[in-house]
């Protein structure tokens, strides 16, 4: 039974089916927007009913669905079984010639064979052949066969193992992925400029938990055992965002750089100061922090030019955020109540926030006289002429803004990191061995010739690059023939 299961997993047919399934399933996930974050997009495109069905089938989260994991698992088993079946064959190729009962039987049938005769004695001929093989290939093995001496030399034996080294690399990568999924995590943290936030952490617990599974159309529940759970763990380490800096390419809204200058705080004491940039993460204990994105939320202040009703004078104010203040002795007061860094007009008169980047900033201002609100409106910096003030003579002009930045950092823990790195290197080594090293082996049988001299049989074999090997075989065999004055 075990043998049958093993043989089933070691078939190329299964590999064919699994490769096709992996390809198709992977492709499906690229056409349907994935994850909860994109649910609205799927609903808008295909409708709620279609979304519900896709969601039920796991297609809205293909790469985390049970069937995708199952195919990957079967694929891993298939890979392992195919590797185990083929390993002994390669191992046999390495078997020392001296250990073989009949060395000549080890010589395979190939298209590369040359036979000739030589006046040299078998002993002299074998010496000359050995020298030539060691010069052209590598160390030469030598054994006595029934018909004569058998000499063998090979080159680039690592290439025989190339495919298996690739497979080993793939197993390591799969293992690294498993470790990351089981024990790793990735959390986003938002830190406002000048404030602190704890670095999020998670821990894995093993035990027995029972989850109630509702039975459809009944009030019954089934107990579903669970042996694993992840819980947020208390972190003592905080990140203080000292300063967030964005620079733009001149004349564009495209950032050329964004950087978080942070301090790592533990137990109230600063233990480290660093700058975080994209491509330049920071490791704090077991967690690595990546600069992910940024945005703006709230204002420190805004510089404005104002003209009040009944006055011709324009005056400058530095307005605080969400704080009502007096406009000189005019009897008027104002307050900036809202700030949208990226505003858009949903419909006439309705301003909505569409993003956190400083792409189209707008502020909502309120004006009061003698404590009574007289006007409120949105002021959009890019369109200063559109002022929705209903109070004649009230004008406002935005000068500069001092928004409060926040940084978005990704805190990730990946216990499989080193395994992934090693697996990738092993895989690359395997690919190198497979494609850039060509295994080649020569056998030469030197047997005594009736009437004196020797009979020589040269056989060559190569894995892959048969065309390149033809030239080599012709070269080496003719050199041997020349060395032995063959005819």
């Amino acid at each position, binding site marked *: 039974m075990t043998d049958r299961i093993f043989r089933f997993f070691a078939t*190329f047919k299964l*590999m*064919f089916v699994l*490769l096709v399934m*992996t*390809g198709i399933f*992977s*492709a499906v*996930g*690229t*056409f349907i*927007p*994935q994850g909860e974050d994109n649910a609205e997009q799927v609903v808008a495109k295909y409708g709620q009913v279609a979304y519900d069905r896709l969601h039920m089938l796991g297609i809205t989260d*293909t*790469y985390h669905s049970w069937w995708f994991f199952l195919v990957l698992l079967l694929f891993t088993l298939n890979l392992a079984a*195919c590797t185990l079946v*083929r390993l002994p064959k390669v191992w046999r190729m390495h078997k020392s010639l001296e250990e073989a009962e009949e060395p000549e039987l080890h010589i395979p049938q190939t298209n590369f064979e040359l036979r000739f005769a030589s006046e040299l004695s078998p002993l002299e001929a074998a010496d000359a052949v050995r020298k030539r093989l060691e010069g052209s290939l590598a160390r030469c093995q030598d054994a006595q066969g029934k018909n004569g001496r058998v000499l063998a030399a090979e080159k680039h034996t690592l290439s025989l193992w190339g*495919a298996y080294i690739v497979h080993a690399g793939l197993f390591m990568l799969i293992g*690294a*992925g498993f470790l990351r999924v089981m024990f790793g995590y*990735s959390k986003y943290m938002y830190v406002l400029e000048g404030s602190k936030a704890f670095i999020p952490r998670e821990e894995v617990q093993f035990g027995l938990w029972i989850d109630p599974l509702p039975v459809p159309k009944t009030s019954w529940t089934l107990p579903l055992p669970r042996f694993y759970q992840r819980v947020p763990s208390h972190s003592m380490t905080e990140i203080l965002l000292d300063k967030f800096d964005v620079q733009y*390419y001149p004349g*564009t809204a*495209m*950032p*050329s*750089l*964004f950087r978080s200058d942070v301090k790592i705080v533990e137990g109230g004491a600063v233990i480290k100061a660093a700058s975080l*940039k*994209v*491509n330049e*993460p920071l490791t704090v204990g077991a967690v*690595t922090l*990546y600069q*992910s994105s940024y945005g703006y939320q709230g204002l420190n202040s805004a510089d404005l030019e104002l003209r009040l009703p009944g006055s011709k004078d324009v005056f400058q104010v530095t307005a605080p955020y969400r704080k009502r203040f007096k406009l000189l002795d005019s009897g008027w007061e104002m307050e900036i109540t809202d700030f949208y860094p990226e505003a858009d007009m949903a419909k006439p008169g309705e301003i909505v926030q569409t993003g956190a980047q400083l792409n189209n900033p707008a502020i909502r201002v309120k004006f009061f006289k003698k404590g009574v609100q007289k006007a409120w409106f949105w002021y959009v910096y890019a369109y200063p002429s559109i002022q929705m003030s209903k109070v004649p003579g009230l004008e406002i002009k935005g000068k500069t803004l001092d928004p409060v930045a926040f940084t978005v950092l*990704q805190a*990730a823990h*990946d216990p499989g*990191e080193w395994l*992934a*790195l090693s697996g*990738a290197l092993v*895989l*690359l080594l395997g*690919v*190198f061995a497979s*494609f*850039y090293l060509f295994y080649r082996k020569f056998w030469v049988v030197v047997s005594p010739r009736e009437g004196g001299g020797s009979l020589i049989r040269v056989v060559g074999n190569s894995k*892959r*690059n*048969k*065309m*390149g090997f033809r030239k080599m075989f012709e070269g080496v065999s003719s050199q041997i023939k020349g060395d032995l004055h063959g005819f």
Partner: protein
Amino acid sequence: MDFDQLSQGLFIALFLILGTAWVLLLIQALRKSEAAGIWASRILGLALVWNLGALAYRGYAAGHAPWANQYESATMVAFGVILLYFIFQRRHKVPALGIMVIPAAMLAIAAANLLPGEYKKMAPLMPALQNYWLKIHVSLMLLSYGSFATTFGLSLMYLIKDGAWTRRTTWIALPIAGAVAGMFFGYVHASAHSPLWLSFLDRLGLSAINGSNAKAYALLALAGTVLGAVTAALVSRLPGSLIGLMPDKDTLDELNYQSVSLGFPLLTLGVILGAFWGHLAWGRYWAWDPKETWAFISWLIFAFFLHMRIFAGWNGRRIAWIGLLGAGSIVFTYWGVNFLLTGLHAYAKSS
């Protein structure tokens, strides 16, 4: 003439140089002219140097490695096609292979030049791309894309030699490819609201904002079909004329395998180094982003090609079809993902 115009001019000139080399290769094959063959090699050598020079100029003018958007990457792919073709031919010297492979480089440059204007402009790099990995990962991926043009050429040659690809196949394949390309061209210009697309809609009396533009797409599909049919009329007899020149089927099969041996390690290295970069920039090696996923699918197809050929004893026609499928997957990974799917790698435009 500004930097952009000069850079684009250099690549248009490259297209003409490659076209001249292709015509000479045809003359060499059909008229058995040795002189034409020698000149074709020289002009291809010039094309390689010209391409390198045009890339270097683009890099100098843009201030970064010249493969940050679709236009730039296409010119790098053209370089990959020519370079890997040269490397392959240096070892194997396959007659008529250039006739099949060089059009891939020409097509890459032509497609890049048919992109909307804003897609062709040089632009500064976003912070995530300001890294040495851009030079390493992207160049390797683009070279691997280019290398599979040789696989495409050899697979096609095998199928022609084998009789599996006939004149009828050409008459079916080219108009279909033309129709798809026509609609894709429309889709790309529609997505960019390019002036060309807007004036096209205007002439048809259609709206860019809320109208159904099926009529515009149908017209482009029709134009593509006609163009494909005209091309088929011009080239459908060509494979028949080249059969005598092609190596025997076994040699083509072995060469096909050799070409994948050249491209597959490049693709593997490119994907793995991309994963390293992803780890550094986004905190994960692999995120099933559409570009990653399609690169993985292409990798699976070529891994399948290699396994079936080496271990399962597949060869000949089946392997050649898999080679074509792999080349098709590479085209989708490169063009389809950038324009039809969204993700972190959608680099059609620089910004």
